[in-house]
């Protein structure tokens, strides 16, 4: 029993309540409190993470409380390596998002004073953000599948309101689409969760105890399908990806970062942990179709991204492409690919986060998300342009930046995966490599159109980044570059837990034996 995780989850909730209960007119105070709370969580997480022993048992900082004994549900939390890094990703992003959306609810004005979004309740926004933080931590930390499900679904609601109330012009459409897609997937997963409980007969939802309880292959396939569809919707995999561009484009920049950076990771995280480990046979049986879907996502996302005129939609489509990589890595079932996928989740969070935020700052200045409305930002706001460029390059996985490591690991791992027979996935790996080229096209083209060329008239009024905005982007860029050169700390944490996963999936040991850090 370790109190760490419950404390981590409780702090933001308390913060949210405090923020919500602040008296009217104390908007500024609300922001400050939120920032403080999120920083506190960050510090606490750091301290906790320092105590994580990568070589120790799989789940650490475990805590279990009886929650609903009638259903056999426990409030069970604990983290393995993958979960830890994803929690870390979340708690790092939250303060950044707080800073980034400092004025989002105040009514976003362009440089020339036109209002993009009207003034809305600041307190609500930030308390929703803190609630969301709790749920993000909870969803990664849950070792009880029921608890996982609860957070998985409940997470939608604050995000729904953040998009719906604080987003762009099409926000309500986007919010509803987002909610219904996710909800539908979630409900299918609910059936599977119940099925797991009922069919498994072990009268518990605790993940470690459920591994291997489903032996019947047909049942495995059904339940796998239930889980996988939910996760595929969440980590938008073609063809159920359509909600993401809308949601990401309409969400305020900060919410978009959390949406794409963290929420969608729940899907891939779930695939890695639950789909593979609970239903190894089904996972293997379904690998080929899933890999095909992943490849389609990768290529489709990239191609469609090229055609986008809206920056945020473009970034969303790049994400779809990247999620294709992650799914590919997960289902390659080799340790390199799976570790790469796990690492990719983190790196993508940083990279896309930075890109969204930088784009958000641009949009906040110009009032338009369309690439065609920009040009020559480089000359007017060099700092902003610089950050935008670095973030963009991270998005195309430039060597030396963090994404490259993970993308490379996924491709190598997939190519060499023997889990499904030697060379079965090599074609997939090769096709996915094509997407790297496409990525260069969409990112560089956007960067070029926005930053270079003749300076558009409205752009001339742009101010460069202020201190707050620098504080938003600088840590992300630092992390991108840092992990690009030195991913070992992350991999050290991730690898053992991926090993656990693969052991439970019973992939041939030959691939496990061939260890490598990729670098």
């Amino acid at each position: 029993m370790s109190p760490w995780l419950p404390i981590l989850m409780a702090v933001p909730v308390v913060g949210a309540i405090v923020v919500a209960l602040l008296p009217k007119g104390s908007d500024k105070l609300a922001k400050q409190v939120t920032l403080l709370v999120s920083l506190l969580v960050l510090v606490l997480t750091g301290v906790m993470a320092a105590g994580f022993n990568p070589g120790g048992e799989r789940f650490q900082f475990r805590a279990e409380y009886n929650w609903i004994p009638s259903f056999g549900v426990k409030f069970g939390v604990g983290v393995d390596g993958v979960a830890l890094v994803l929690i870390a990703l979340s708690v790092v992003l939250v303060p950044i998002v707080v800073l980034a959306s400092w004025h989002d609810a105040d009514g976003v004005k362009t440089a020339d004073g036109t209002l993009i979004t009207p003034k809305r309740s600041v307190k609500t926004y930030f308390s929703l953000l803190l609630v969301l933080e709790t749920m993000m931590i909870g969803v990664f930390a849950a070792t009880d599948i029921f608890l996982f499900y609860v957070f998985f679904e409940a997470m939608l609601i604050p995000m729904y309101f953040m998009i719906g109330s604080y987003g762009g012009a099409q926000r309500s459409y986007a919010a509803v689409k987002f909610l219904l897609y996710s909800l539908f997937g979630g409900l299918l997963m609910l059936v599977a969760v119940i099925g797991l409980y009922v069919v498994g007969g072990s009268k518990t939802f605790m993940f470690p105890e459920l591994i291997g309880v489903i032996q019947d292959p047909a049942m495995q396939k059904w339940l796998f399908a239930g889980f996988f569809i939910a996760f595929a919707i969440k980590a938008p995999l073609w063809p159920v990806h359509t909600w993401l561009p809308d949601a990401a484009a309409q969400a305020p920049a900060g919410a978009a970062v959390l949406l794409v950076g963290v929420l969608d990771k729940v899907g891939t995280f779930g695939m890695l942990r639950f789909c593979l480990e609970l239903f190894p046979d089904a996972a293997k049986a379904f690998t080929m179709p899933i890999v095909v879907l992943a490849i389609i996502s990768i290529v489709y996302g990239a191609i469609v991204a090229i055609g986008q005129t809206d920056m945020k939609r473009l970034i969303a489509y790049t994400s779809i492409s990247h999620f294709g990589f992650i799914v590919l890595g997960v289902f390659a079932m080799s340790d390199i690919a799976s570790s790469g996928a796990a690492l990719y989740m983190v790196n993508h969070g940083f990279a896309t986060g930075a890109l969204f935020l930088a784009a958000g700052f641009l949009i906040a200045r110009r009032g338009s998300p369309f690439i065609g409305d920009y040009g020559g930002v480089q000359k007017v706001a060099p700092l902003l342009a610089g950050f935008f460029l670095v973030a963009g390059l991270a998005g195309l996985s430039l060597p030396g930046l963090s994404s490259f490591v993970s993308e490379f690991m996924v491709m190598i791992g997939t190519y060499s995966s023997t889990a499904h027979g030697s060379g079965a996935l090599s074609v997939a790996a090769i096709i996915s490599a094509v997407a790297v080229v496409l990525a260069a096209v969409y990112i560089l083209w956007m960067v070029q159109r926005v930053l270079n060329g003749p300076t558009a008239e409205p752009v001339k009024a742009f101010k460069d980044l202020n201190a707050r905005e620098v504080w938003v982007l600088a840590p992300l860029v630092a992390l991108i570059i840092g992990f690009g050169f030195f991913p070992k700390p992350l991999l050290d944490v991730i690898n053992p837990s991926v090993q656990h996963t693969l052991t439970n999936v019973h992939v041939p040991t030959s691939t496990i034996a061939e260890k490598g850090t990729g670098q």
Partner: protein
Amino acid sequence: MNSIPAPTIEYGTLAPLLVVFGAAVIGVLVEAFAPRYLRKSIHVPLTLLSLFGAFALVLVQVLRGQVSTVASAMGAVAVDGPALFIWGVILVLSFVCVLLINDEGHFVASAAAVPGSADEEEAEAEGSGGHTEVYPLVLFAVGGMLLFPASHDLLMMFVALEVMSLPLYLLCGLARRRRLLSQEASMKYFLLGAFSSAFFLYGIAMIYGFAGTVSLPGINQALASNAQLDPLLMLGFSLVGVGLLFKIGAAPFHAWKPDVYQGAPTPITALMASGTLVAAIGAVLRVFWVGLGNLDWNWRPAIWGVAALTMIVGSILAITQTEIKRMLAYSSIAHAGFLLVGVMATFGTAEQNAVSLKAILFYLAVYGITTVGAFAVVTLVRDPGGEAGHLSRWAGLGKRAPMLAGVFAFFLLAFAGIPLTSGFFGKYAVFAAALNSGTQPGDSMGGWMAGLVVVGVVASAIAAFFYVRVIVLMFFSEPAADGPAIAVPSAGTVAVIAVSLLVTVGVGLYPESVLGIANDAARSLFIR
């Protein structure tokens, strides 16, 4: 010749019933003798106290561990664990509804007067906040609701059904605003209700012809000893089923629900949507479980179809609604379908029975209270002509009244079954029970149960759409310039909303609080 022995009656066990009926009778006397200006101030405490007293009596029975294991009153009423739980739920719900009813302005002063006539004006002038007959009528209805699920023979059930329904027919027609609508609702409810109870009764007759008795255990015994498929029996049970399914508003017998919910005064709608549903589901359980225990291979496929149809019809038709109360009515239909899934699951071993029963009881409790809360919110959003029923009038409510809209949104999320609300656990419990029953050894409907759950899931997803649509309307649309006024809620209404919210949140966070009680109640099962 005079060989009728004096029956024995367990007054202690039946005390909650007697208190409610007694208070209703006293209420009639108050109507008759108290001067008009005093009536309300007598009625309200009387009604609330009696409901509270009955609840306390239920509690006493539970706490002292005196849950009876044999039917009371010569086998007419069975006050077993589930019945006590249902009683508790109904009493709490009706208590809360009475607080809502107590609010001024929902009821007309003189129902018999032609709207706008001099008679009505006169009645309004000397009235003290509308019809005071409402209180005894509500008490009678509540008494019927208590008796309905506790009836141990079909005759008692029929009488209870009518005792419950007749006051409700009247109450439906007492709305102060939109009188024509209200009266029409009343008439439709009455005609259809009487029609369905005639079916119910004919079904009882057929069953009596088959079994020679109307006592539920007696019927079950007759079934056990006579395995062959008697047409009388089949006819009887289908007719009884029609009557019961009508009361819970299951498709295809749901047509009355939207009309009546829309036309009735909103506090009464709240009472019907919560209390009546709870009572009717309790009765359905008792009939199908106690009376038909030995015949389940026959009724389950039929209920399967009805449950699936109900969920789908409720969810899909709700989407097309533009009236908030009609929408909630269709939502109630869909929820009746979910509950029927639970009824389906009461098959197999005693353990499975208990699991399903627990699920249904829990669902009833949490759904009921959330419903009352939702309707309480509806009463507060008002146009000059009464409640702002049309959905378009609710646009932008989140900006005009963030608290109210937030609470309502929360209730809607609970209806939709979003985790961390009570509704989620209700739905979960029912689905889990259904899937669990599919794994019962020897159940030929295992796969079907899974199929039903999938239908349920699809229906929930569809249903989520229209709940979310209202939230979108409230929060993400701009308010109209002449939007509805938000009435200043009376203390009673505030209390209703607060209690509903607390329960919905509290149970959502810690469902074990109610689940535990439901579990205890369900473990003792119905007296068979």
